[in-house]
């Protein structure tokens, strides 16, 4: 039977890898992306996610030259997100060696929902991934999950179940739930969020944000199989001083 996927997630800023906390502007230098991809290839990771944290904000296209060099050094399936605004961007990335192309829900809103169908038409639904930045708000004492949309001028919050219902109409491969509040916090994966998202979709789910340890990831991967569990800090830092040491579950 198909196995759960355990996925290191890397953040690109310019031509280097960084780590953020809650996706704030404060970043920690992690290393060179090509070197990191070589190391994760040696570690035989199930998949690798790579997100450029600046391209959409700056209205720029993906750095195809750098991404091509990264893909050449990858021996695992690759997913990329950041600055994709058209099907031709996605086609370029597939040609470079990326199996899955992720566009954020904010990116979808920037363009229009029709971009999802354009991507499905050109690269096939099996390669289309939508990433949702999820935050929490408290209303009448209840925690509600909201999908955050932001651009230079405004920030809006959409009901998570409503967004999942819209996405259910499209034959995409996967939804990545990016738990913004827990990103970089190492406080554990929110299984309530995971379960709510799983109920609302027919495609695959990957949850990103909050993972504490290899054992937590392994346990959830088994409990919710088949699922994708992505993490950055856990596979990037080690020890109480959080020294950079790329690692993976054996």
């Amino acid at each position: 039977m198909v196995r759960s996927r355990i996925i290191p997630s890397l953040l690109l800023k310019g031509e280097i890898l960084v780590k953020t906390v809650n996706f704030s502007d404060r970043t920690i230098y992690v290393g060179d992306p090509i070197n990191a991809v070589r190391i994760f290839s040696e570690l035989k990771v199930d998949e690798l996610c790579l997100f450029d944290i600046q391209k959409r904000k700056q209205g720029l296209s993906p750095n195809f030259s750098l991404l091509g060099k990264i893909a050449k050094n990858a021996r695992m399936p690759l997913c990329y997100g950041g600055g994709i605004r058209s099907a031709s961007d996605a086609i370029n990335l597939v040609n470079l060696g990326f199996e899955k192309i992720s566009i954020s829900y904010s990116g979808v809103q920037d363009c229009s929902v029709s971009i999802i169908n354009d991507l499905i038409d050109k690269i096939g639904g099996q390669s289309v991934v939508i990433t949702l930045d999820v935050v929490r708000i408290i209303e009448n004492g209840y925690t509600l999950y909201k999908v955050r949309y932001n651009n230079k001028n405004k920030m809006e919050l959409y009901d998570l179940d409503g967004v999942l219902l819209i996405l259910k109409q499209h034959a995409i491969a996967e939804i990545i739930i990016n738990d913004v509040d827990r990103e970089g916090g190492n406080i554990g994966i929110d299984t309530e969020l995971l379960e709510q998202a799983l109920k609302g979709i027919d495609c695959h789910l990957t949850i990103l944000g909050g993972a504490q340890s290899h054992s937590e990831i392994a346990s959830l991967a088994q409990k919710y199989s088949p699922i994708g569990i992505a993490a950055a800090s856990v596979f990037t830092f080690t020890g109480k001083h959080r020294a950079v040491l790329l690692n993976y579950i054996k």
Partner: protein
Amino acid sequence: MIGIIDYNFGNVSALCSTLNELDLNYKIISEPNDMENISHIIMPGVGSFDNVIQNLVSSGLSAYLCQRKDLKVLGICIGMHILGDRSEEGIMPGLGILPGTVVKLENKLRTPHLGWNSVKLPITSKLFQNVDLDDGFYFLHNYMFLSENKGNDIAFTNYGQTIVSAVSDGRIYGVQFHPEKSGVNGKTLIKNFSEL
């Protein structure tokens, strides 16, 4: 020499990296004139059915590949689907050099079939020599190949239903998974194909 078909689409780059690691000579093929000294062809595997076929038709490779009866062919995922007669994914006819049709996955599990899965091999096949079948391969697909001649099916994978994960009809081979992204197993399979 191995030729990798470039239909302006599909992860040609990943296949090149694998062939480089194996120290195998290869050439990227965009049109029939590129085919000199080519004995083995690999059809890469990301894309949608009609887009891939349209590109092969306009480059002249569609007609050429149907005429050449001596080439060893390995189709990967969509590269396997287009070898068949037709697909539920598109409206254009396939190349028709591997008898069969392509249908949408129909099961109660989440689609697509995504991730690492094991492979079962009822009979031995040179293509899978020294492959760890339990470790398996990386799959990513919404559609699957149904052979007209069930005797052509050489490997199977379970995902809520039985999926034919490899077919072989003489010199024509197709695999549903992505060997170029399947680590050691994938490299072994590509090497085995090069030695057929």
